């Protein structure tokens, strides 16, 4: 209980004073050893951007990349990712742009990317997708093609891509058939050598371990904010590790 209070306090203080955080300020209780990326793919553009001390990131996503309410965007994972990247990459100027709108399918976002890329010139595109396609039962081949298209567009513009798959949502599990979409996403990621942030399985582990009560019928934002905070920090881990693995001594540069 006290741990939780302390954590909340930390979050409150941090919200008041952005930039002033260190990684140690967060309890690492949402790190999961159970979910490991199956292969570490390199992020060459990101790695060279970090080396050049200037990293532009673009987050493209649908409704689960934001939280409702006036402060929704500040507490959602893209903002938390920015914080974590800044904290972990001292001396690097991290700029994060967000293109998040609810109810967009992968094809919608692949299209939006074409317009967004020249504006933000990111070295890294973080792409959250899959849920809306599953809800709208979009043809799974079309879904895979949209993913391929998005990756190609981003790469042509000199950006790496990281995927985020759908979130684990126990209450709606029997209503949204994520299976094929998660599977296709994983397969496209493997083929295209794109790191996949396995949000689904990470959240599932949280639910199993009791880290978060994802079944809770609460209408309050606090749990959602903590979940997004964790996602943001774990995502920063993935980005930094993948960028490192592209360095010559590592295996990932195939």
């Amino acid at each position, binding site marked *: 209980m006290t741990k939780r209070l302390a954590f909340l306090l930390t979050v409150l203080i941090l919200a008041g004073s952005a930039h002033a955080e260190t990684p140690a300020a967060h309890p690492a209780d949402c790190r999961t050893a159970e979910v490991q990326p199956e292969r570490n793919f390199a992020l060459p553009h990101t790695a060279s951007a970090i080396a050049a001390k200037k990293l532009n990131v673009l987050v493209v996503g*649908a409704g689960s990349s934001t939280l409702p309410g006036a402060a929704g965007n500040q507490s959602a994972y893209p903002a938390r990712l920015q914080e974590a990247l800044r904290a972990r990459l001292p001396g690097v100027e991290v700029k994060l742009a967000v293109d998040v709108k609810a109810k967009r399918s992968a094809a919608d976002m692949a299209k939006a990317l074409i317009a967004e890329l020249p504006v933000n010139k990111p070295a890294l595109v973080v792409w959250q997708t899959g849920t*809306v396609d599953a809800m709208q039962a979009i043809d799974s081949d079309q879904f895979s093609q949209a993913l391929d298209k998005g990756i190609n567009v981003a790469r042509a513009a000199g950006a790496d891509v990281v995927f985020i798959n759908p979130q684990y949502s126990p209450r709606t599990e029997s209503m949204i058939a994520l299976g*094929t979409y998660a599977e296709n996403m994983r397969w496209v990621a493997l083929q295209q050598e794109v790191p996949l942030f396995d949000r689904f399985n990470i959240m599932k582990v949280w639910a199993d371990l009791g880290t978060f009560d994802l079944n809770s019928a609460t209408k309050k934002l606090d749990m959602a904010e903590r979940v997004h905070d964790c996602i943001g920090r774990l995502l920063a881990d993935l980005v930094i590790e993948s960028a490192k693995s592209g360095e010559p001594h590592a295996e990932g540069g195939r």
Partner: protein
Amino acid sequence: MRLDLFRGIALWLIFLDHIPSNAVSWITIRNYGFSDATEIFVFISGYTAAFVYGRAMQTHGFIVATARVLKRTWQIYVAHVFLFAIYLAEISYVSQSFDNPLYSEEMGVLDFLKNPDVTIMQALLLKFKPVNMDVLPLYIMLLLSFAPVLWLLLRSPSLALIASAGLYTLAWMFDWNFPAYPQGTWAFNPLAWQMLFVFGAWCALGGAQRLGHWINSPVVLGLAVAYLVFAFGIAMTWYFPWLGAFVPRFVGEAIYPIDKTNLDVLRILHFLSLAVITVRLVPQDAPWLKSPLAWPAIVCGQHSLGIFCLGVFLSFAGHFVFTEVSNRVLTHVIVSLTGIGIMVAAASIISWYRRVERQGPGPRPPTTKTGYAGGSA
């Protein structure tokens, strides 16, 4: 007996697989290869339909048999609408009681409640099919067109089989499928899945004997075993990603994605391999088929429609228990076993009631007789 046994088992597997994140579902066959219980269900349904209605067509003629097939189709349609009503009840409950801001996007799946005029109409037209409610519409379409197919099967079995395979090929070549609502196509493409149904029917009408020496040849058995081992190996890479490194890239590119909608050839082969081995291991007159151990599955298989609907309902209920009461592995085991227990109990009550009714006094319309012939279709 053997058919009913495997249909019963398939119904149990469908029930287990339809409870989301059920820990017990790791025992089901879809986790060990490409095909799953749907293939078994469709094949055996085709087999029984041909068996029951084929005899009706030979003794009573085309019109009477068609009428019986259509009557059965209507029953399945009603069952589907009944399941849809249960689904509506479930999601209406969720939409009223659950509003976690973390899941505002996922809650959008309930949006169709806002315009029930369109959605319910689309559901009645079989275009709007919620998750896990795709099998019965497939079955309805297959039975709806079954009478002419059966007629052809009785005249020229080979021609019917070739026509069916031709339709399957055309559906693949030109991406033919039925439209769904609000968009997309049917999750089980009837134009592709019909092949397994017709193949089942073909086997029932003498095809099985013709295939006899194929099935019994050691070469075919060896191929079947080898293929199952291959599929098992691929399936293992889904759970142990590090194994994926051993799959050569060209193999992955050749087999993925495995298309369930259009009944991928890999799935058919996997099902056929399973069937070949099953026929070997379980002879038609195996004594243990009469043993009490086999009885629960057989009795479920004999009343497949009712038990299927019950299974879907129970999987909703099981998921409800997981989210509302407890989500431990022990609960999963208890819920799964209880669900199968209820299915067996319901099936045996139906059997008992039919027996009582048959013995009971009073005139009975002769049409119902076929109902007992090989279990219901």
